[in-house]
């Protein structure tokens, strides 16, 4: 039996190192030419509990995760107990000798015999890698890379453990059906959504990042910080989110393209600064990685519940844009694009992601950096008569940087005149508010259009934004396989909307179903508000998990 795709789940307690096992296996799969989609599920604790790292792999391109487990690498009995119900036909379990599983054939690995306890992870990599048919040399190489900072002895003992695992496996009779060999794919990166946002932002010209740690956004910051020196970026962990956003605004004003990253509660604290970005016309990128709320909610899980808050957060009215990447490639593009939009329109721009996509590793073709023009603010020298808020048709005033010329750059949080100085002239207020709001048109013209796929005249049109893109694409494929005329439409940007890009096709579709990870149908509400179009149906999810095609199909079948 050969499979179209394979789900490998590594499960155990926090602190058992399952992410390390998962990353090595995932990278080995990518290097071997497979496509992957990783889903990580973890609890809000550092040790104990129950976490999983699941890799879906295929020799064909993949759009999203699937349910079911084909290979379960169980680091403890709890993993077996919790996940045996998900085991698919033909699946196998890898577990330590003492552990037992009724639902599927179990390879009981004699971990203790094969290596010291602290090399358990390495043994697991070896056995699982072997079962998956991954080349031993590749596993060795990735293991060394993983261990590059450690002592020679530790390295050697690890390689020994790997060898022992592979040798042991060879002697085990098993008929686990691996994936078909993959085509040679050339070199590809393995990136999570958050890493891609960070790298995209660096490609786009990021020069300043401030943040306050908050799951699931922190890895954006850590990715930037790790490269900050090399890339010439100034970063700072702020004392709170209020500081983070105001630092970013100060930096952006002074010429450093700036980003903050945060999650719901931290974003709440940034909304006053968001409004200041709107008023002071300071470029600002906010990467908002969503998790289930309200309040602290489920801090390590996924949700798309903060769309409304992103669109309407901040007091008063001002233009903004919201990018909602659905793939890791789109995350990278969004990182660069957000900086460009923020700079070109001098206003805040969101990148909305969620825990699922943030932590989801994928195989990605190398990016064409040459196609990205990094932002360079303040080409203009402030001349002696420079006016920061000069009136223009587009609403965008030529931007100059303080200290870069003889003139002065005056930015203000109060209503102000073209020169930036505080004013209580009420007629001027209207002129300046109209100026700022005019930028909406430019943002709308620059919008990333939604991406349709599938038949023009669809019986069913599944609409996604953000991370539901992949599951929706897979669900549509499933529907097509059932012979249904299913199309998809993905919004990689949800604001502004340009109805000309989609409305007519929505109106033509038999049934329009919006698929989004919240309870309220926030995007569906936005569509109706902006176009009058009421989606025929809503598929929501708010249990902290990402969508899967199976979930969507089940809902549709109800």
């Amino acid at each position, binding site marked *: 039996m050969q499979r179209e795709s394979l789900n490998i789940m590594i499960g155990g307690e926090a602190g058992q190192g399952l992410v390390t096992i998962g990353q090595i296996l995932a990278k080995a799969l990518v290097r071997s030419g497979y496509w992957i989609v990783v889903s990580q599920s973890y609890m809000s604790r550092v040790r104990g509990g129950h976490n999983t790292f699941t890799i879906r792999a295929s020799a064909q391109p993949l759009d999203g995760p699937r349910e079911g487990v084909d290979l379960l690498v169980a680091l403890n009995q709890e993993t077996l107990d919790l996940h045996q119900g998900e085991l698919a036909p033909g699946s196998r379990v890898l577990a330590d000798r003492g552990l037992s599983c009724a639902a599927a054939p179990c390879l009981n690995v004699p971990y203790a015999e094969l290596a010291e306890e602290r090399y358990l992870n390495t043994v697991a990599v070896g056995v699982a890698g072997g079962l998956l048919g991954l080349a031993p040399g590749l596993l060795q190489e990735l293991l060394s890379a993983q261990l590059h900072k450690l002592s020679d002895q530790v390295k050697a003992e690890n390689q020994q453990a790997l060898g022992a695992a592979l040798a042991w496996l060879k002697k085990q009779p098993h008929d686990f059906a691996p994936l078909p060999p993959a085509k040679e794919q050339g070199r590809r990166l393995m990136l999570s959504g958050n890493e891609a946002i960070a790298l995209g932002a660096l490609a786009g*010209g990021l020069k300043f990042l401030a943040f306050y740690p908050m799951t699931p956004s922190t890895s954006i910051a850590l990715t930037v910080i790790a490269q900050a020196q090399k890339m010439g970026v100034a970063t*700072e962990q702020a004392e709170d989110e209020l*500081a983070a956003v105001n*630092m970013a605004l*100060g930096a952006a004003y*002074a010429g450093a393209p700036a980003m903050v990253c945060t999650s719901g509660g931290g974003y709440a604290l940034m909304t006053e600064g968001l409004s200041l970005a709107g008023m002071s016309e300071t470029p600002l990128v906010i990467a908002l990685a969503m998790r289930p709320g309200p309040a602290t909610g489920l801090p390590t899980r996924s949700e798309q519940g903060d769309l409304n808050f992103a669109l309407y957060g901040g007091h008063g009215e001002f233009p903004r844009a919201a990018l909602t990447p659905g793939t890791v490639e789109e995350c990278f593009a969004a990182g660069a694009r957000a900086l460009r939009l923020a700079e070109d329109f001098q206003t805040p721009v969101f990148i909305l992601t969620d825990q699922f996509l943030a932590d989801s590793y994928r195989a990605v073709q190398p990016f064409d950096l040459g196609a990205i023009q990094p932002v360079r603010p303040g080409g203009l020298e402030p001349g002696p008569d420079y006016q920061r808020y000069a009136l223009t048709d587009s609403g965008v005033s030529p931007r100059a940087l303080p200290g*870069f010329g003889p*003139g*002065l750059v005056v930015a203000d*949080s109060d209503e102000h005149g073209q020169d930036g100085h505080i004013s209580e002239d009420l007629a001027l207020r209207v002129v300046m508010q109209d100026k700022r709001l005019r930028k909406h048109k430019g943002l709308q013209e620059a919008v990333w259009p939604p991406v349709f796929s599938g038949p023009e005249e669809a019986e069913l049109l599944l609409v996604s934004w953000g991370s539901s893109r992949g599951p929706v694409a897979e669900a549509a494929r499933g529907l097509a396989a059932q012979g249904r005329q299913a199309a998809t439409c993905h919004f990689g940007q949800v604001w502004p909307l340009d109805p000309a890009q989609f409305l007519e096709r929505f109106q033509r579709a038999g049934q329009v179903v919006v698929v989004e990870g919240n309870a309220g149908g926030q995007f569906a509400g936005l569509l109706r508000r902006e176009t009058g179009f009421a989606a025929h149906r809503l598929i929501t999810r708010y249990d902290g998990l990402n969508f899967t095609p199976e979930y969507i199909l089940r809902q549709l079948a109800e």
Partner: protein
Amino acid sequence: MVTSEDYGQFETAWCPGCGNFGILKALKQALAASDLAPNQVLLVSGIGQAAKTPHYLRCNCFNGLHGRSLPAATGAALANPELKVVVTSGDGCHYGEGGNHFLAALRRNVDLTVLVHDNQIYGLTKGQASPTSLEGMHTKAQPDGVHSYPFNPVAVAVSCHAGLVARGYAGEVEHLAGLIQLGLAHRGLALIDILQPCVSFNKLNTYQWYGQRVYKLGAEHDPGDWEAAIKLSYEFGERIPLGVIYENQRLAFQDHYSVLQKGPLARQAVDHGILAQVMEGFF
């Protein structure tokens, strides 16, 4: 040679007799005496009467949110090390709404000159207690008197080893200008807490009240002596010392950033070649 006049003369929205006038004058004098041209200087402020200051002199200006001037100033200073960044806001802004940023900025020792127009009241919102209001002071919002122990910014700043900590008085313009000039010259965070009479709302801490209490520190006080500074920082009652209370030579926050050695970030081109190398780590 820069002169005070280069910084212009503007109409203000302050009450006649307000202590802010003295501070504005001293600030202009200090900037001129430091030979800083208006386009080299960035004034960052929050919201309040004090925070309107940047609108009343010619300079670059980022007039941000109430309480958030220090983070904005920190960001600007990290983006362009060539700017001389001066922060000017009220006691409510710095010690009330912005208290957490105040602590963090002191600990970072960002190279900023921080002027706190400390009128011991919320002026712009018409006279509520501020963190430095004395216990028992009555206002419409505190009809039974203030119950909190007054915040001692000087003591907290010294305890956090801020770079330079001084107290000035709006009624002593020349002396204050001198302090601001020292602050501008100091590399690191220079806090200048400035006693500032609010003639409209603070009927307790008046020119007379301050005048009877302030005295200027002489050579007998060594600002390098941290223990002495700590002790002196608690003197705020019958006598109130003016002058530099504490100074150290801790590395300024900016000096930890190697990228800033190369000048303003906006002048440093993004190197996609290096990024391509970085990407190698993800293959």
